[in-house]
């Protein structure tokens, strides 16, 4: 690169830094004109708004990604075998010890026979173990306050119960289109794809939830 070009880039960079610090100083000076309390409030709200917006954008991105990502062969097998009597519950909703218990008792599965041949069972067990509720990421909240317990139902998880404690039973058992909380997909429209954020909840016959 020519010496002259290097100089030019240097000058541009310097200009940027100077410009930015000027903006920063002006803002500080302006801001210090307000009372400290107001400023604290302001910055707290700004922070919250920003983090909410960030959360929202991230959710939106995850949703789109989840909806367009093609299913792997084992995921297809999972939906085929575990999605015919109810929606195929995303593996991330239960911890590994729960899946283990469920997969060992398929002959008497909540009063039904969900038997699989040994090979399919082994393959799906492996998949569920590996994709089960992680300590990190989207589903980490599902296993909050659980330790090593192995509940057989998602609907028995403390976090799940907490999140659904306020829904009146006339919206669930008394609702022809729902029947029980186990039917996630009747209220969470993104459930099939592992999507459960509050924004996409519509209780049938009740409509969108406010707040």
């Amino acid at each position, binding site marked *: 690169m020519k010496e002259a070009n290097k100089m030019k880039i240097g000058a541009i960079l310097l200009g940027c830094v100077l410009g930015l610090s000027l903006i920063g100083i002006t803002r500080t000076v302006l801001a210090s004109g307000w009372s400290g309390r107001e400023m604290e409030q302001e910055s707290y709200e700004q922070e919250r708004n920003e983090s909410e917006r960030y959360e929202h954008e991230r959710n939106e991105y995850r949703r789109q990604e989840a909806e367009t990502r093609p299913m792997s062969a084992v995921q297809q097998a999972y939906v085929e075998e575990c999605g*015919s*009597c*109810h*929606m195929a519950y995303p593996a991330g909703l239960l911890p590994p010890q729960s899946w283990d218990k469920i997969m060992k008792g398929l002959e008497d599965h*909540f*009063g*039904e*026979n*969900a*038997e699989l041949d040994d090979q399919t069972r082994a393959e799906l067990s492996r998949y569920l173990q590996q994709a089960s509720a992680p300590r990190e990421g989207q589903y980490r909240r599902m296993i909050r306050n659980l330790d090593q317990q192995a509940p057989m139902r998602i609907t028995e998880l403390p976090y799940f119960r907490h999140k659904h404690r306020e829904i009146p039973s006339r919206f669930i058992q008394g609702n022809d289109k729902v*029947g*029980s909380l*186990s*039917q996630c997909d*009747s209220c969470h429209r993104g459930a099939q794809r592992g999507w459960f954020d509050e924004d996409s909840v519509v209780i049938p016959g009740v409509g969108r939830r406010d707040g």
Partner: protein
Amino acid sequence: MKPGLVLLCGMLVVNVWLPAHAQSSAAKQIKGWQSQGAAAADPQQGKLLWFSKHGVRSCSSCHGASPLEAGQHAKTRKPIKPMALSKNPARFTSQRKTEKWFRRNCKWTWGRECTAQEKVDILSWLSSQ
């Protein structure tokens, strides 16, 4: 012109090949049970079996009052697609699937496995609907 042709061909495949394929697939399964000792198919008997009650349970508890229409799982309320071949050409195309559900559903509904003859009769009725 071209997309229209492709669409037409696609529709032909769906309308002619799929049902024919399903029909032959159901027929093949029936032959299979007959080679295990079942006699000729009796669709009327299949229909009787389908609606026969064991306590409160029958095949129609989940598959609904008519095989031409969608059913609903008795406990989870998940919709189940129609069983009649004419309405749902994807039916009985996988022997593994058909056998698996006969085993589960006969046990759940009647408390025992279905015999080869019962499967022949039921499948012949469903595929004639």
